[in-house]
């Protein structure tokens, strides 16, 4: 147990915003992700999806924005969720730092990768 006798622990308000963000992003994700899944997996299917399919879809700037917003929200939402989980289970300070760093790095890389694709994907000439 790490808290001292009767001493208030520091409060930054960060957890409040994290909590709030999880809920708001969750709400938006309901539409984005379920919509995405519906289009990709129900209306279409992996059998149909190929490079051309993706290319056609991304030709539309609207879809690009849709995908990017979804990507970013899902990443942040998911990463924050994982952060909470790490906080829960990784108690040794060393390990906790390790996992958290790993998470942040991976999230950042993925965000960059995802953004790069969406921005640079060649528009059909």
């Amino acid at each position, binding site marked *: 147990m790490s808290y001292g006798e009767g001493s208030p622990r520091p409060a930054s308000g960060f957890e409040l915003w994290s909590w709030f963000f999880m809920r708001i992003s969750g709400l938006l994700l309901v539409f984005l992700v379920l919509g995405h899944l519906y289009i990709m997996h*129900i209306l279409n299917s992996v059998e149909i999806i190929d490079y051309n399919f993706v290319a056609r879809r991304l030709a539309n700037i609207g879809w690009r924005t849709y995908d990017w917003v979804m990507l970013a929200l899902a990443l942040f939402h998911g990463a924050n969720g994982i952060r909470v989980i790490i906080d829960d289970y990784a108690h040794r300070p060393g390990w906790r730092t390790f996992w958290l760093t790993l998470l942040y790095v991976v999230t950042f890389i993925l965000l960059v990768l995802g953004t790069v694709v969406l921005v640079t994907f060649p528009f059909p000439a």
Partner: protein
Amino acid sequence: MGLYRGYRGSQGQWAWMLHRLSGVGIMLFLMMHIVDTFLAGFGPQVYDHVMAIYRAPLFMVLEVVLVGGVVYHAVNGLRVIIIDFWPNALRWHKSLIVAEVIVFLVLFIPAAVIMLGRLFG
């Protein structure tokens, strides 16, 4: 997870564990998904090669699980949000779980049928 064994908790406990599992699962998938989409940047051959893997039957079943996970996570997430922002919902929290299961089934069963139908059809 050994910690959770043997405690006969409320339905809330199971709902939460599933939420956590599905959350992590989706996150892992998302990571993979970003990578594969990124590969699309390398041109059609590479991407189509990756998509071929997704078409393996095993992956198609996993896809169903993924959809189930997302649907569950979404529905349960909504339930949590309702409880958080609408005080009166606390009174009905048990009914909410029942409602959640129903909504989940209503969304998931048809989806699964369509998707598995493809696999076998």
